[in-house]
């Protein structure tokens, strides 16, 4: 995406993938706009060609043409503070004059891209190329964003989450989720077991909540977003009943868990289990899960943007053994009973 000023004499374009080998993704820039960006991984070169086009019969005198590779964190709440954590610069041209269209090759070698690109509510972490044609009064600046994805391996340890929670003498449940770390196309498999039901439950739902927090010390700014909500039970359960949970993550707009990035922000995910009774009182239990990005099995290097599918593809035999090799499913059965809190303002359960 290039910034084209009205009546500007210059335009520039970035050619990053002449052979059509690189994957692209559809990225949400803001509420209404989406754009297609090339995907890069940590350590990869960022190379290509910059094409500068001039309006017919015009000349541009300049003090140098500079190309930067920038990685930055933008915090919208803090008066749009920008924190640059990566800046690589190349001088593409010494001061001179442009009289005709020109193409300039560039190659940033083995570029470190330590974090994943992230477009959030209050935080934007982006990587982009910035071309600056330095002039006496005002520069011409052109930017092109790329999308960096961070891949992880299957975690060595991936215990299930199993806990008994409740309100004394009123409601006791035991919930279990099959893993604590899920990849973005994983399936959450779990169950809720009712130990004591003395309230009149109407239905139960599970939600995925994203918590984006930024700032440190006294200025912590948090944004919560409900990414998904899914009813898992309709009606009143009795003691001894088990309710299954199966939630496919691939259908939702999720990112990997990001903890304390450059000590500026975190993005964490929680499963929120909510029981609603006949008087609309809500009883809930939030549990953090870790999300991570797995390498796509799809080796197809066509230029199609990757789409998220809701159904789960059958893994092939090789991948099956990979999944079996992931950590033991030790259950974490904490003996203490945790209090289920109510999020309805009309109830003041202590946590």
């Amino acid at each position, binding site marked *: 995406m290039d910034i084209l000023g009205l009546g500007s004499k210059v335009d520039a374009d970035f050619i990053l993938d002449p052979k059509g080998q690189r994957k692209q993704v559809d990225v949400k820039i803001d509420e209404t706009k989406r754009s297609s960006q090339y995907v890069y991984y940590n350590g990869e070169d960022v190379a290509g060609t910059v094409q500068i086009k001039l309006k017919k019969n015009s000349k541009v005198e300049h003090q140098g043409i500079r190309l930067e590779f920038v990685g930055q964190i933008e915090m919208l709440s803090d008066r749009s503070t920008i924190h640059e954590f990566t800046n690589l610069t190349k001088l593409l041209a010494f001061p001179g004059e442009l009289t005709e269209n020109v193409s300039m090759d560039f190659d940033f070698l083995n570029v470190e891209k330590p974090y994943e690109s992230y477009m959030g509510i209050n935080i934007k972490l982006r990587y982009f190329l910035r071309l600056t044609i330095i002039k006496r009064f005002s520069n011409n600046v052109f930017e092109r964003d790329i999308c960096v994805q961070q891949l992880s391996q299957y975690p060595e340890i991936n215990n299930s989450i199993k806990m008994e929670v409740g309100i004394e003498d009123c409601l006791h449940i035991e919930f279990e989720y099959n893993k604590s770390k899920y990849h973005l196309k994983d399936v959450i498999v779990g*169950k809720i077991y009712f130990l004591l039901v*003395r309230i009149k439950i109407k239905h139960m739902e599970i939600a995925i909540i994203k918590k984006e927090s930024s700032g440190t010390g006294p200025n912590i700014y948090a944004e919560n977003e409900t990414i998904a909500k899914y009813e898992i039970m309709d009606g009143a359960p009795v003691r*001894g009943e088990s309710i299954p949970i199966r939630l496919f993550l691939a259908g939702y707009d999720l990112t990997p868990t990001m903890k304390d990035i450059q000590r500026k922000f975190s993005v964490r995910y929680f499963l929120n289990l909510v029981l609603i009774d006949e008087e609309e009182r809500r009883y809930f239990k939030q549990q953090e899960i870790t999300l991570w990005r797995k390498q796509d099995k799809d080796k197809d290097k066509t230029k199609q943007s990757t789409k998220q599918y809701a159904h*789960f593809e059958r893994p092939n035999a090789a991948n099956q053994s990979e999944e079996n090799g992931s950590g033991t499913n030790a259950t974490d059965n904490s003996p203490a009973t945790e209090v289920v809190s109510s999020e309805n303002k009309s109830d003041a359960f202590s946590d």
Partner: protein
Amino acid sequence: MATIDADNRREIARLPTRPISLEDRYDPPANFLEIEILNPETHGFGNKRYTDYEIRMKTNLPVFRIKECSVRRRYSDFEWLRRELERDSKIVVPSLPSKAWKRQVPAFLRRDDGIFEDEFIEERRKGLEQFINKVAGHPLAQNERSLHVFLQDTTIDYDKYVPGKVRNS
């Protein structure tokens, strides 16, 4: 959407569950609580009248000492309960049906019988029934002595009453 063939996909198959006993499945549920407000009666004569209602309660919740009871209460008793709960419990107490001040204007200024009209009493009865069911089903309200006194004591002894908490028997 194609049906999910969980048998062939071991990794998304349901977690193993404990079987439920026949008793648990078919016994009356442990959350049985029914409160009805019935039989409004107006007592007294002239401007010394008042209306009270029967509160019939049936439950199997262990927190309530008596499993079936019937008491008579008037609107001011409900107001007392609401005040006690507002002060002592941590819940936001639902509101009562209105006090109806306009209807309490002297009889000669009204065309009807004010708060002793059948229609009004029925409306109030419904509102009180909603109120008491909402409150009695709230786990935090069930720990308040005022609720138990209100529902289960034959009469509320305002002199002897002391606020407090109720623990499960």
